[in-house]
């Protein structure tokens, strides 16, 4: 798909283009995004919308459902993506106002990337903590392409191994975050004998995380077949409500996060999970969750990248729960 395939208008009076994809239409003004579809319409803060859109684009629609809020979102089918309004909202469904359309992944990806690039002004970084970026509001004021097109880090074996993803440092543009100033920066003692430099390898994961410049952005640091360690640093609120299509695990490495857990399909509250350093918890495959981190914290998100898992779970061949006891 090329930029010419993206359906957009000339800039509106606030300087932003409007976009259409299938039956969905997107318009932003100084404060809000306005989304319409054949059976309804929705208004949301542009701040929350851009933060959610940034994750959906950067994660290539992630695992399962990315709810931007209680109305709008996407479901990844790994090759195609559903865009929906009201699909996981009981009231919308009962009123028959819900709407879903399926798109080839490149089509929706390029449209979302265009919206994100156009609607993000120069002083706003949707990946940053709200305390570390300017506000997204107002008329069009430049762009922040380097921020919204960050490359997603994905180690093939482990961060720090020669030839794999690099460590972070002041020199590479990753200073220690203000909330992790007390995290030790010492590196492990690594003594490979000649010829074994790619096998005898270690790095300081906590120091690496302390230098992350983004929030709520799991990235792969080590790979054991389909077992993916995807640690991330969290501050304020997870900008999306993630609906699982497989079991996901959290290991709280530092500080504290509170998770609101709801039924994946209806949004009915199921539990509130408070995790402190050393706590481990599963997020079952039939829930949606949103996290709250009062101080920047380190969270190890542990994913299973087995591409057959969602289908096996949907067919009842695998449980939505990881363990029975």
């Amino acid at each position, binding site marked *: 798909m090329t930029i010419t395939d993206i359906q957009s208008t000339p800039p509106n009076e606030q300087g932003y283009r409007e976009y259409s994809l299938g039956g969905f239409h997107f318009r932003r003004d100084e404060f809000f995004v306005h989304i319409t579809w054949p059976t309804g319409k929705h208004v949301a803060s542009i701040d929350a919308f851009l933060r959610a859109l940034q994750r959906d684009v950067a994660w290539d629609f992630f695992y399962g459902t990315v709810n931007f809020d209680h109305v709008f979102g996407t479901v990844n089918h790994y090759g195609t993506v559903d865009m929906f309004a009201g699909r996981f909202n009981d009231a919308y469904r009962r009123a028959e106002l819900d709407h879903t359309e399926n798109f080839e992944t490149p089509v929706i990806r390029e449209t979302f990337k265009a919206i994100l690039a156009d609607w993000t002004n120069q002083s706003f970084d949707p990946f940053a903590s709200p305390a570390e970026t300017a506000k997204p509001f107002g008329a069009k004021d430049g762009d922040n392409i380097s921020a919204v097109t960050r490359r997603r880090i994905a180690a093939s*074996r*482990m961060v720090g191994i020669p030839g794999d993803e690099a460590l972070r440092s002041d020199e590479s543009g990753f200073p220690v975050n203000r909330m*992790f100033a*007390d995290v*030790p920066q010492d*590196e*492990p*003692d*690594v*003594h490979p004998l000649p010829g*074994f430099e790619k*096998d*005898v*390898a*270690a*790095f*300081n*994961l*906590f*120091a690496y995380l302390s230098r992350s410049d983004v929030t709520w952005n799991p990235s792969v*640091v*080590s*790979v*054991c*077949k*389909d*077992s993916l*360690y995807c640690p991330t640093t969290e501050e304020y609120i997870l900008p999306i409500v993630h609906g699982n299509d*497989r079991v996901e*695990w959290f*290991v709280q*490495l530092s*500080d*504290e996060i509170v998770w609101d*857990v709801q039924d994946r399909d209806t949004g*009915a*509250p*199921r*539990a*509130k999970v*408070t*995790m*402190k*350093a*050393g*706590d*481990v*918890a*599963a*997020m*079952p495959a039939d829930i949606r969750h949103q996290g709250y981190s009062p101080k*920047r914290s380190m969270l190890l998100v*542990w994913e*299973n990248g087995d591409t057959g*898992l969602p289908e096996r779970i949907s067919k009842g061949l*695998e449980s939505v*729960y*990881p*363990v029975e*006891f």
Partner: protein
Amino acid sequence: MTTKYVTKFGSLENYEKGGIEIIDDDPKHFVFSNIFEVANSSKPWEKVAVAKNTKYVIEGVRAEGTSEWRTCAHDEFVTVLDGEVKVEFVKLATPAVPADKEGSVALGGEPTGTPMGHVVLRRGHQALLPANAAYRFTANRTGVLIQQAIHGDDTVERWADICLS
């Protein structure tokens, strides 16, 4: 006002455990445990599963003294959450396990092969445990590590003992 932030890590001797407020669910579904609490009730080097996703596991391990030599046909990874752990590596002259064997196994003695070197890990440090190498841990004071692994012959599952219910 300038705020001085303090990052809270846990340790064997100092950790706080969170919890679950149930609204309409079963706490068992969240398989909630605390790694330091698990290590406090584990034998040295016991590989206790604290997370499981089909065949994959994260094992919580009480690091104390010197472990046996182990090996695995695929890469694993170890992260130290408390204490200091030395890891020694030996490239085995011949792999000790078939290529399709998943999970680590104990060698049952000293490895035969070529020394590869060693690493010393402290809190927050992560190391590769490379496929078909023998490895051995040493912790001069009791610590805690987690291992990114596949369920093996020696993985211990005792969910009812470690999880909220």
